[in-house]
């Protein structure tokens, strides 16, 4: 396992892009999606497709009886979905950027005061909570906050505000994991 680069980017490598510049870049990708497709970006839907595909392979009857699976199943293969392709592209784009900056490493992101096992346990628990939240909210930071934020979608702005409220409310209790 190689060393984790410092949060400001590892020494001797290009540091992160100016956040405002990166934001303009991300915003233009989002705008292109609106203009070309008539929809915004998303991430959670690709996880839903992947899970629906797995559940269908195990028990097609079970998958058909539950809307959160059935909604992602149709005549085509479940992974032949727009968001699965978008997220696959995102994987490639992030890999390109990471390789350009020498930021690719087999490593665990954590603060100095927590064990690797403890960190991975929290990564799992946090992922599960975010998964439930994204399903109830009909989207995540991509599909709701970013996309709906730009469209001035009423529910998206409430969701986004509450993401920050939830994050700041819990931050104190999990500070040992990060600082």
């Amino acid at each position, binding site marked *: 396992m190689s060393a984790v680069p410092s949060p400001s980017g590892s020494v001797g490598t290009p540091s*992160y892009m100016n956040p405002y510049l990166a934001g303009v870049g991300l915003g233009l990708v989002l705008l292109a999606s609106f203009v070309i497709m008539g929809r915004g970006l998303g991430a959670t839907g690709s996880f839903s497709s992947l899970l629906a595909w797995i559940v269908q392979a195990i028990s097609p009857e079970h998958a058909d009886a539950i809307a959160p699976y059935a909604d992602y199943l149709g005549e085509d293969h479940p992974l032949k979905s727009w968001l699965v392709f978008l997220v696959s592209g995102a994987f490639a784009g992030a890999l390109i950027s990471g390789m350009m900056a020498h930021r690719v490493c087999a490593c665990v992101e954590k603060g100095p005061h927590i064990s690797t096992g403890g960190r991975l346990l929290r990564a799992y628990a946090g992922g599960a909570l975010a998964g439930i939240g994204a399903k109830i909210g009909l989207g995540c930071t991509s599909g709701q906050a970013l996309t709906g934020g730009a469209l001035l979608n009423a529910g998206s702005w409430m969701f986004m505000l509450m993401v920050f409220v*939830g994050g700041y409310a819990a931050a104190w209790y999990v500070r040992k994991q990060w600082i």
Partner: protein
Amino acid sequence: MDIGAPFYKLGMFGDDASLAVAAMLGVGFGFFLERAGFGSARKLTAQFYLSDMSVFKVMFTAIVTAMVGVFALSASGWLDFSKIYLVPTYVVPQIIAGFVFGVGFVIGGYCPGTSVAGIATGRIDAGVYAIGMLTGIFIYAEGFNSFFASWAEATPMGQITLPAVFGISPGYLVMAVAVMAIGAFALAERVESAFRRPG
């Protein structure tokens, strides 16, 4: 100006081509997430300890950029805003959802999109987070018929934007959000320099 967009909704290309578009947009999406440092859980969660407000800065710059673009192109008559998909609003479920999601964000260290950037750059914790995500969606789905379905669509408002809720012209709100964002960026810079940690 005659309506010329969204291209896909106007039938300019089909479903298979739309998947290629998705992959290309995805490359840009992932590229800028990683460029910003969002493949790193420590960089992301620093937002909640006020030492690095990049999450806020990147997100709101992206929102303002796309918002102004959509507004200008719609106002010119070229982009048909009514053909852009809006996620319907359910007030109470989305308030609860945002809170739960935010707690998951600071505990897990990522959000779903940034976990993909983390996985792509080798972060093992991002991979574990993604498995957690699948577990969470599994819990939701398995509990849907008996629990979540009864309130998942409570307090519906339909597909509605903030200008429609407040009954004001979209242009004023676009301007107000842009001005507020600039003020918030200035505040974020000050907070950051007060809380910045060495290293």
